[in-house]
């Protein structure tokens, strides 16, 4: 069976005044129907640019190459008029900040109905009924009254529910969620994640979940893509990567998770800061911050993405030069920190 979405060698560059910035440097992944893929990484790792590249929402200064197949059709290079029929219809997106993502001068009902009527041949009252259903589906009480309200009359969590309702209104095959819970407070975060989990089965949409929170990945995703400096550091099934992480950057991410640090005094952090995409380090992008760095790591083009040796038939890849013995030992140590969950 072909995957719902397949990205091959996706590469996105930006022209800036200082030169060309490579935000995504050739990444490949796929998402099956009804599945959730997590894309994790720090700020600047290229995870948001990945989602915007798929949606075709990047500014004019961006150049995207490679291919992204959705239902067999390559989205890259598709004219905007064609892409518009797919956006909001076959694939939809929700964004990080629900406080600013809705237009302040139109009612929530207006914005929902707009989303529906762009893609579906419905009259006003049909679209209104559909909007009501959607608000009810995302757990907003009194949807009939709430449709007449403006965004400022909703709380952050409620606005994110509206965004989700708007995204799912046309039954998209793919939902891209770009850090949907980052701007929300902790209790609301849990509610939104719960909602997304329920809606996934109800609408049978595949989800690409972009986050910097491995906790979200553990809760919601089957597959995960760990990005660093515009490249894939490690990718594979979530259980597998939590059990046997194989890239030093993944180790760093796992060690810095608060839930895994119980019983210790301090959280472990990764020293240094993310690389400049304008002047990236030679070789492995992570080498300046890596504890296990060797001379081989500083040589271009850097380690290739390869299969983990004992993956047991699972597709678990990583990009690192570290020798197998050290890697397995360190993986065991990092995975061993995990509290019984």
């Amino acid at each position, binding site marked *: 069976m072909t995957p719902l979405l397949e990205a091959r060698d996706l590469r996105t560059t930006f022209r800036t005044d200082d030169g060309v910035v490579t935000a995504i440097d050739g990444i490949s992944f796929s998402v099956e129907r009804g599945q959730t893929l997590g894309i994790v990484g720090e700020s600047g790792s290229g995870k948001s640019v990945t989602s915007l590249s798929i949606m075709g929402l990047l500014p004019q200064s961006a150049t995207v190459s490679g291919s992204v197949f959705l239902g067999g059709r390559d989205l890259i290079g598709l004219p905007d008029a064609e892409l*518009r*029929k797919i*956006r909001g219809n076959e694939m939809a997106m929700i*964004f990080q900040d629900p406080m600013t993502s*809705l*237009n302040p001068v139109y009612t929530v009902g207006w914005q929902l109905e707009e989303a529906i009527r762009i893609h579906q041949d419905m009259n006003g009252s049909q679209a209104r009924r559909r909007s009501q259903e959607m608000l009810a589906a995302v757990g907003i009480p009194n949807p009939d009254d709430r449709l007449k309200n403006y965004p*400022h009359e909703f709380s952050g969590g409620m606005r994110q529910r509206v965004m989700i309702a708007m995204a799912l209104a046309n039954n998209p095959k793919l939902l891209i969620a770009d850090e949907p819970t980052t701007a929300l407070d902790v209790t609301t975060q849990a509610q939104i994640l719960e909602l997304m989990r329920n809606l996934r089965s109800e609408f049978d949409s595949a989800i690409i979940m972009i986050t910097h929170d491995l906790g979200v990945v553990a809760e919601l995703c089957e597959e995960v893509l760990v990005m660093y400096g515009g490249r894939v550091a490690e990718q594979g099934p979530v259980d597998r990567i939590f059990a046997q992480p194989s890239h030093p950057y993944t180790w760093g991410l796992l060690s810095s998770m608060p839930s895994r640090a119980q019983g210790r005094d301090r959280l472990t952090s990764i020293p240094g800061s993310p690389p400049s995409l304008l002047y990236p380090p030679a070789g492995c992008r992570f080498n300046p911050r890596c504890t296990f760095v060797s001379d081989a790591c500083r040589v271009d083009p850097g380690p290739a993405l390869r299969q983990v040796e004992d993956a047991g038939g699972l597709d678990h890849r990583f990009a690192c030069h570290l020798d197998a013995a050290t890697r397995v030992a360190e993986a065991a140590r990092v995975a061993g920190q995990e509290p019984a969950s």
Partner: protein
Amino acid sequence: MIRYAIRRFLWGLLTLFVLLLATFVIFGPVLQGQKGVSAANTICGDKCSPERVHDITIFLGLDRPWYAQFGTYVERLVLGPSADEMARMCPQNNKATTDCVGRLGQSFKDQRSVDVVIGETFPTTLSLAIVSVIVWLVVSFAAGILSALRRGSLFDRMTMVVVLWGQALPIYYFGLLALWLLAFLPNSAQFESWFGFRVELFPIGNYEPLELSNPWPWFWHLILPAGTLALQFAALYTRMIRSGMLTALGEDYVRTARAKGVSPRRVVLRHAARNVLLPIVTMTGLDFGTLLGGAVLTETTFGLPGLGRQAIIAVGNLDVPMTSGIVLFAGAAIILANIVVDLLYATLDPRIRLG
């Protein structure tokens, strides 16, 4: 909403009263006259009969303290001139007695009612304001949105140059330039010697009242003055709309709209421009209100018999009732424009709650 409107209106009346008092205080000393010579004498001139001087003194209350003068002034404004006052101030041979005394008093210059003079000159000013507000809004929305969409393009840079030009140079410069190039030159002997014909492309100033059956002469006379006046506003508004659009187009909600599959045209016009509309409505309302008090420079340059030019004439004649009448009228227009803007804003921006 209605309660808010009423309260806003009452505040407007209070503001107007303060303005009334202020103009009275400012112009009051003129009425006191110079060194023992009664102001009534000065107003009336040398050939004035003692009866006339007496009438003026009684009418303005010059024989009473200033607060009584102010009282008379306000009373006349609210209730209108009494029959007694009209009989006193209007010459015996003047049949249309309402033409010589109004609520705002009588002009020192030609014994005419200030109300009537304002009523005669205001249509010119109103026409000028309406035509130019339409011109500058159309021009600045088109130029502002286009240059925001094509930021950094030749069009954008040209627009910004014109904007700078329009803002930097005064109205009388552009007015005279336009008059000379578009009205005088095409209809001159010089032009005929060059091209063998002459044409009256635009009139050299002046005003033609609006005839609904044939509005063209009215419009034809207004094109140059309204265009000149509009240019200055269009420059500012284009800049505002351009930067507003640039901000709006970078907002998250615009990205959301695009992610929904909304067409670029609709994204720009319905989602971005709608948010830019709010500050522009405020500015337009206030600028329009200000223009209703008379566009002094434009009216003077183009010889339009409007309120602004009337004000200049009145000031030159030390015509206190006329000057303070126009000031009061202009002030009322601005106060009214403020109220309208506030009410309009509340309906346009759902985030504003009235109370």
